[in-house]
């Protein structure tokens, strides 16, 4: 039986390979950018805008900070309790054009020892977890110096 590939959240990212991008929205009135997306009202208190258009966010940014999770996070994070916990790194990335910081997991295999504040990273498609029917996809940050 073939499994379906489903984004862990609908509408937050699109594409694959080199075309993978995070999706935000931009207010048509004041140009404020939102991620996670705002689709109804602009959150700039000085803007009455309510028309927001979908925009892809910059593919690349620089590490604002990073950490990792040495212990298994609680539900609703999905893990297999039968398997030993494998820590992963989390990276907060500053996007220059959008002037915002976006948090995400690092690609598997990248540890905190390989990261530094200010390092360039790019967003790539990744697998959050898999079950019998579905491959749940997400975004991940990968240092641009890494070719994997």
């Amino acid at each position, binding site marked *: 039986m073939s499994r379906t590939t489903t984004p*862990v*959240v609908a509408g937050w990212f699109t594409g694959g390979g080199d075309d993978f991008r995070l999706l935000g929205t931009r*207010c048509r009135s*004041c*140009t*404020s*950018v*939102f*991620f*996670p997306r705002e689709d109804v009202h602009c*959150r*700039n*208190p*000085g*803007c009455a805008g309510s028309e927001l258009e979908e925009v892809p966010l910059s593919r690349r940014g620089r590490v*604002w*900070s*990073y*950490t*990792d*999770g*040495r*212990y298994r*996070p*609680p*539900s*609703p*994070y*999905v893990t297999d309790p039968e398997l030993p916990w494998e820590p*992963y790194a*989390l990276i*907060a990335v500053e996007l220059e*054009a*959008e*002037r*915002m*910081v*976006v*948090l*995400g*997991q690092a690609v598997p295999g990248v540890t*905190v020892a390989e990261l*530094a*504040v*200010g390092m360039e990273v790019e967003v790539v498609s990744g697998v*959050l977890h898999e079950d019998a029917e579905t491959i749940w996809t*997400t975004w991940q940050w990968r240092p641009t110096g890494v070719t994997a």
Partner: protein
Amino acid sequence: MAADGGDGVTGEVAVLGVGMHPWGKWGRGFVEYGVVAARAALADAGLDWREVDSIVGADTVRGGYPGYVAGATFAKALGWQGARVTSVYAACASGAQAIDTARGQILSGLADVVLVVGADAAPKGFFRPAGGDRPDDPDWLRFRILGATNPTYFGLYARRRMAVHGDTMEDFAQVKVKNSALGALNPYARYRKRVTVDEVAGSAVVADPLRLLDICATSDGGAAVVLCSMEFARRQGVAEPVRVRAVSTVTPRYPNTVLDLPDIATDSAVAVEPAGETFRASIARAAYEEAGIGPEDLSLAEVYDLSTALELQWYEDLGLCGEGEGAKLLREGATTLGGRVPVNTSGGLASFGEAVPAQAIAQVCELTWQLRGAAGDRQVEGARAGMTANQGLFGHGSAVVAVR
């Protein structure tokens, strides 16, 4: 409503009584902790519960139905007596908002004497969001998509400080050393053993660079205060009560450019230039302005050391030192007992662990004991003014200024 003395109207309320249930992992219900704290505060105030006009409860989201209606839950447990009731939720700032609610009732003349209670029974391990499939809840989403626990954010802040300000792991550990030494002197603290730098360094990494002993635990506990009008205090024969002079409960300003719990991203600053100060700094500034005092006037402060690194951040946010100088202030000994401005004389969250709705009230209990000169071995000599500060999820934060 600054206390400028111009027309004699001060906006101050009196702290007539304070009480706590010891923090720990007791395995009982939060109502019991809250009632113990409430009775202690009433006894400290010399009041019968039936003399209280109003009760304000700080909600616990872990207590189910009775927690969501904490004010009524405590009122019923203490014995229905007809008091006005309010329940408030503001994440980690719940206790301070409960105090602010009580203050507002007193200053507006709706009540003369108000009992404020917060208590929690915390689960083992990481805090987690409510169950179910709830993609409209940012707290649920950060766990579902990223597995981002609270220590994830503490780790990000700590690493950022190391990169930007040059803080070291030993600086962070020294916060724990200081707070554990103070907690050892506090009968209400959960952890009463002094901790060394080596013990911090030897504890397990939870969220790089932070280790288990850098991060506050989750605890059971309860705290209560009895607030009243200055006139009521005088009628009770308390001529010089500890007074609450300011309660800051401000929200962030757009664009909020610090990644706050439980957010996955900051606001974008592309259309609006960010304010010159962070949300945390604005919480303290609003309290200073309301109280009509500045950082140089503080005898002590109780800040929300969810992690060791965050305590250093608070030094800067409270204006006790310049940006990036938190670790230097700690190394100079300014923030320990006997220093220029002792911070977390209670032992802080490092010694208590967090009992969310009780914690901001417990901070005010410590200020009160200090300002009364009743803090025993933890006493700050000649304490005249103190500030509490905390920050919680969803844009909540608080600072309380108390003086004597």
